[in-house]
């Protein structure tokens, strides 16, 4: 790993580091404080005892030196001499051991005196030994007595010093002991306080560091349970967890957006499929209508040709009225034969109704009158074929037929703001509400196509085709029926006026 990277303290790492540092620093300082105090007490006690030990060794060795010298001088024993030299060496070692510090302390000065006196003592004793070996009696006795005098001084000094040290030591011990109690008390307090503080710190920091993680975990759990309606998780920090949280929040939002998009797509697809089904239905209806028309006119071509021939025959024979009648009937048939799948102009429709009315007039011989009131400007409008004639036929069959008075039918074609209004008004028997509702409750459903009136396509068929053609869902949007029983009926076709309406192409037409 990159060393620089290793030491870069950011985010979580920094937090953890700071935490550990704080705890360690506190514990470290606390233990340093304890250590220092312990060392202080130990040092104090040490210095007291070190001097005792030192003085005691000095005392013992000086005594050994003197007694061995005495033995040697008295007996000239080589053992005593050896012991004498041993003590001598030890003394020299001792005096070398404690460096003569220059101090103003009275006890230190006494130490210095003792060392110097010890050196003088050794000088005297050595001189005594040399004199003894040289058999110079007077001299060795003088040196010996001198050495005894000096050792007496040293003893006195050592005693004084011991006494001083004891006095100082005991008072020092008392203060140290008193202080030690205080120090121990303070130590305990500091230790406990620092421990508590550390514990609190640990709790606090653990909570601080893990709180965002816990929140994140809770949110993640909800996501796992497919609950996407969660508020954005917020963490009060700026570390890796914050980055993680931000990414998490972004992810939740993305998932939500994605789901919304999927739903929208599905809806669109469904709408498209519905439309397709509608198209299919319309096609079916058309087919059905054509079949009906074919069934209604057995071999229409033959019938049409026959009619034409009949018309010519009537003309040749000079029966003009008959000829015209037959001519109109032939036109009517031809129009029907054109098929329903081809859009026609309003002019075609109107002329078809004219042909039909001629025949009706002839047939009912003056009992029926049909009046046209057509706005010429609308004649070029493209409309579905055979939509007016069935309405007129309906008026005749259900309104006028069997009526005592003279039947009147008015066809009005006029313009309104949104629609082209085609009114067919009769003064016939009228229809009841149930029948009206039946007609208007129509839905473009091929299953009910068999219910047509045998002689025509019927109002229902017209309504269905208009609904499909103009793509509306309610019958009332294309047809209104106003009727009063015994007074007449007014049927209004409302063709939405949307300029150039695109004609739905129908496949499979003849």
């Amino acid at each position, binding site marked *: 790993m990159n060393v620089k990277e290793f030491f870069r303290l950011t985010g979580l790492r920094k937090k953890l580091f700071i935490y550990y540092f704080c705890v360690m620093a506190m514990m470290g300082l606390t233990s340093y404080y304890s250590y*220092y105090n312990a060392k202080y007490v130990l040092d104090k006690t040490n210095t007291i005892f070190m001097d005792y030990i030192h003085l005691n060794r000095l005392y013992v060795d000086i005594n050994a030196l003197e007694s061995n010298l005495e033995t040697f001088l008295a007996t000239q024993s080589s053992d005593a001499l050896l012991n004498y030299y041993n003590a001598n060496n030890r003394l020299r070692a001792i005096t070398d051991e404690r460096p003569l510090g220059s101090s103003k302390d009275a006890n230190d000065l006494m130490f210095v005196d003792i060392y110097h006196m010890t050196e003088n003592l050794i000088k005297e004793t050595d001189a005594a030994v040399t004199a003894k070996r040289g058999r110079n009696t007077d001299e060795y006795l003088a040196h010996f007595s001198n050495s005894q005098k000096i050792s007496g001084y040293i003893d006195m000094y050592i005693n004084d010093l011991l006494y001083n040290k004891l006095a100082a030591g005991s008072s020092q011990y008392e203060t140290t002991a008193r202080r030690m109690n205080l120090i121990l008390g303070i130590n305990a307090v500091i230790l406990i306080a620092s421990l508590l503080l550390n514990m609190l710190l640990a709790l606090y920091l653990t909570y601080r560091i893990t709180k965002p993680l816990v929140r994140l975990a809770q949110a993640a759990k909800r996501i796992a349970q497919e609950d996407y309606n969660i508020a954005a998780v917020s963490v009060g920090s700026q570390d890796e967890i914050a980055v993680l949280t931000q990414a998490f929040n972004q992810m939740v939002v993305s998932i939500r957006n994605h789901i919304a998009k999927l739903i929208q797509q599905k809806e669109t697809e469904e709408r498209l499929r519905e439309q397709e089904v509608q198209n299919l239905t319309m096609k079916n209806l058309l087919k059905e209508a054509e079949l009906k028309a074919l069934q209604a006119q057995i071999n229409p071509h033959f019938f049409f040709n026959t009619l034409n021939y009949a018309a010519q025959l009537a003309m040749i024979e000079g029966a003009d009225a008959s000829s015209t009648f037959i001519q109109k009937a032939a036109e009517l048939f031809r129009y029907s034969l054109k098929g329903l799948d081809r859009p026609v102009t309003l002019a075609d429709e109107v002329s078809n109704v004219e042909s039909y009315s001629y025949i009706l007039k002839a047939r009912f011989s003056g009992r029926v009158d049909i009046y046209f009131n057509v706005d010429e400007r609308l004649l070029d409008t493209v409309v579905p074929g055979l939509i007016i004639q069935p309405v007129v036929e309906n008026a005749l069959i259900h309104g006028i037929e069997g009526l005592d008075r003279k039947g009147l039918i008015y066809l009005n074609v006029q313009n309104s703001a949104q629609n082209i209004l085609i009114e067919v008004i009769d003064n016939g028997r009228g229809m009841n509400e149930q029948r009206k509702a039946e007609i208007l409750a129509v839905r473009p459903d091929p299953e009910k196509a068999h219910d047509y009136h045998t002689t025509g396509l019927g109002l229902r068929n017209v309504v269905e085709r208009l609904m499909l053609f103009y793509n509306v869902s309610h019958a009332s949007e294309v047809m209104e029926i106003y009727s009063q029983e015994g007074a007449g009926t007014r049927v209004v076709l409302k063709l939405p006026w949307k300029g150039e309406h695109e004609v739905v192409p129908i496949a499979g037409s003849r």
Partner: protein
Amino acid sequence: METVKHANQGHGVLRPKVRVWLLAALLLLTILNIALFYARQRENHVAEKPPQYHFYMILQNSVDPFWQDVRRGAQDAAKTLNVAIEFRAPQFNNSEEEQKYIDIATLSRVDGIITPAVNNPDFIKLINQATAQGIPVITIENDAKDSQRQAFIGSNSFMLGAEAGKLLNDAVQGKARVAVIMSSELEKDALTQNMIMNGFSSTLKDAPGIQVIKVYTPKMEILSTEEITQAVLRQGDINAVFCLDAINTVGVAQSIVDFNKVGKITVIGYGITPEIKNYIEKGVIHGTVVGNPYTIGYYGVKSMLEVKQNRTTSSVTDTGVQIVDKANMTSYEMQNSGGKP
């Protein structure tokens, strides 16, 4: 499109309040440790500069306030001049012990010996022995003129006697019959005492009304002082006493109180102790002649340093004489409560 809002409150690991507390705790601990460390360091380094020399001062005894003042003066000088000084004192006046200490100092090869001396052959021999080994000796308060000592520091005995005479003259207004009680201290050799007497007598020459009736020499200090005082009182016509040492002065004052003769006998004392001060305040003792012990101690060390550094110093330093009576007691105390000469 939804967006994620940045949560951006609360920076760092800790809330500011917690941070402050934590820092305070850490700081406190650190300061505690540093303070401890420095306290310890200072304790270890009390002795700043190593002393230049190691001097050895012998005092006549360890109880007399006079010698305590000498010691104080020497200590102050040692501190100022940065020398180490070691004190030795027999508990009570003891010439032999003083001699032993001189021997010890010589054997301990100190840098200088400051001691009150006795002008006798044994003492002189020891002083000369030390000098022979290159250890300079300075005598204080009492001189050993015949030795090879480098210098003497103390009061002029003649002046001491003269001042005492003046004090007496003022006290009795020129008319008195005087008894003199000599010192029983062995160190106060005849020579010194004679010098004091000479001074005393020479002052009184100008006062014909004052007569020295008798001179006593006590043998055992206070105990015999009582007898002397009784003798003096029995004599009847003596109305003034001059004592030549501090212990006798106290003894005489005590006896006068015991015999209810306060105010009838004028006492001129020597030296100053708490008892003497007390008696002066009560009016039992009229006044006392005092050397300047602090100055003696101070100059003892100072002169010794001069000897060490310049190999020479003035052979006699007169530290002067002071008179203490009821009138100037307060100012004397002020002056001697720790000030330098």
